[in-house]
């Protein structure tokens, strides 16, 4: 009986890998996310846009439970990942291995390039040298960084340029073979060329992963997003296919924000 039920659940959620239901998040008394409902599809890129302080980062950090670190955080509602509530009966450590995250500021750990990438796989119990080397090569290639660093994998990661560090962080997330990749303004500090490289990597990666990218740059959302969600002051104003959001949004506020007439 149980097996059947689980199969049914999975089938049901095939096109619906993450579904967020009535999510409310509070920091202390501050109501930061208000009744969010959103379904997110695999093999697509969801772009999350909205002005500063609208709760984009908070939303992203709910998906890998990084908000749990703040003892002030309270939430209601549920987030289903393959039909399972990630806040019930799932170990956050396991969850974070399946949900990679890339931060706004690239933050390589204080170790070498190689060590940065094998950090996660080693924690997950992979010790075979050959396998680790393979993982390093593949994830660096997938992050479009391999050619630039292949001869200096043992250099400290801090010596890379900002754009390279950000791609290293992407490679580091890929090394865990996650199902979902969360990106929080991954290009905010980067030049157009590095940005283009990261966007190209994203287009390749979405074949294998679900990607959610928070961006302050609406043009970037239009370029890479299959779907776009617009947040404003903790509310999800609307989410739809990117084309629709950018050509014929349902809400006046979305239109104002996208056209830069926001004040």
């Amino acid at each position, binding site marked *: 009986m149980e097996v059947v039920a689980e199969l049914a659940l999975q089938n049901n959620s095939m096109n619906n890998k993450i579904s967020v239901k009535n999510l409310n998040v509070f920091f202390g008394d501050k109501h930061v996310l208000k009744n969010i409902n959103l379904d997110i599809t695999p093999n697509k890129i969801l772009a999350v846009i909205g002005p500063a302080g609208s709760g984009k980062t908070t939303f992203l950090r709910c998906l*890998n439970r*990084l908000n749990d*670190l703040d*003892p002030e955080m309270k939430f209601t509602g549920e987030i289903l990942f393959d039909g399972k509530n990630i806040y019930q009966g799932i170990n956050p*450590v*396991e969850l*974070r*291995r399946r949900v*990679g*995250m890339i*931060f706004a*500021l690239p*933050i*390589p*750990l*204080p*170790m070498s390039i190689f060590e940065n990438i094998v*950090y*996660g796989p080693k*924690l*997950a119990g992979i010790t075979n040298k050959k396998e680790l080397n393979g993982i390093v090569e593949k994830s660096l290639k997938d992050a479009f960084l391999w050619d630039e660093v292949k001869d200096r994998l043992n250099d400290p990661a801090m010596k890379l340029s900002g754009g390279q560090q950000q791609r290293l*962080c992407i490679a*580091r*997330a890929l090394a*865990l073979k996650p199902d979902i990749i969360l990106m929080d303004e991954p290009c905010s500090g980067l030049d157009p060329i590095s940005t283009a490289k990261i966007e190209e990597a994203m287009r390749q990666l979405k074949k294998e992963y679900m990607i959610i990218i928070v961006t302050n740059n609406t043009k970037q959302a239009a370029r890479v997003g299959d779907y776009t969600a617009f947040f404003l002051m903790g509310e999800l104003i609307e989410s739809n296919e990117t084309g629709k959001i950018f050509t014929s949004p349902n809400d006046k506020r979305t239109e104002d924000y996208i056209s830069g007439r926001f004040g």
Partner: protein
Amino acid sequence: MKNTKEVVIEKSLFLIALSAIFMLFLIAIFIFKEGTPLIFKVGFKNFVTSSKWFPLEGQFGIFSMILGTLWITAGALIIGVPLGLSCAIFLSEFVPRRIMAILKPTIELLAGIPSVVYGFIGMVVLVPLIRENLGGPGLSILAGSIILGIMILPTIISISIDAIQAVPRSYREGSLAMGATKWQTIHMVVLKAARSGIVASIILGMGRAIGETMAVIMVAGNAVKIPRSILDPARTLTTNIALEMGFAAGDHRQALFATGVVLFIIIMILNIIANYAVRKR
């Protein structure tokens, strides 16, 4: 006109700094000037490798005291470093900030207790405990190490906490986001990033342990004899100076300064090793 004010402030700060350094320099010169003639007289090798210390008969060998200093300092570190570090990790990572804000100043207060008080507690409580349970005279290397190990705790804890808290939150989040547990994050990322501060705390603690005199006099037994076990009494370089300076004259007095010179050199060497260890990686 702001400019002249700046210049005056700058120049006077420079003068003050210079005079402070000058005083330290003078003290060092004085110690060397008083101490080195005797070292040349008995020979450096003889002075540091002989353990015959009979100042009234003109025999000056401080080997047993060098050993005493090293044993007791090492013992203090063996006790103080693991305790202090665990405490610092626990306080900075597992205790809510509010409680930390009360606990840390309390621990720092312990650094302000005069060493004679620590020594007295050691003499009254610790020494009899060792004598009755482990044998020997009680006044011993073990007693000295335990008391010093406790005395260096506030230094190690407080400076290590500062170093651990200075590690950016983003390192921890980056590590946790990759599926590390809290403990994995602490020992693979946080401690690594805080390493230079932690080593600094250990160096400072070590400096305090080598230099401490009063507490050691009270609990370590002060016998001029090569220690064979941690239950044997021992005399350190500092206590040698303090115990005999009251009645030393002539060569004997110079030998005490020479003891200071050797202490100076040992501290320098340990500092260089420690600094090298920090910079190496």
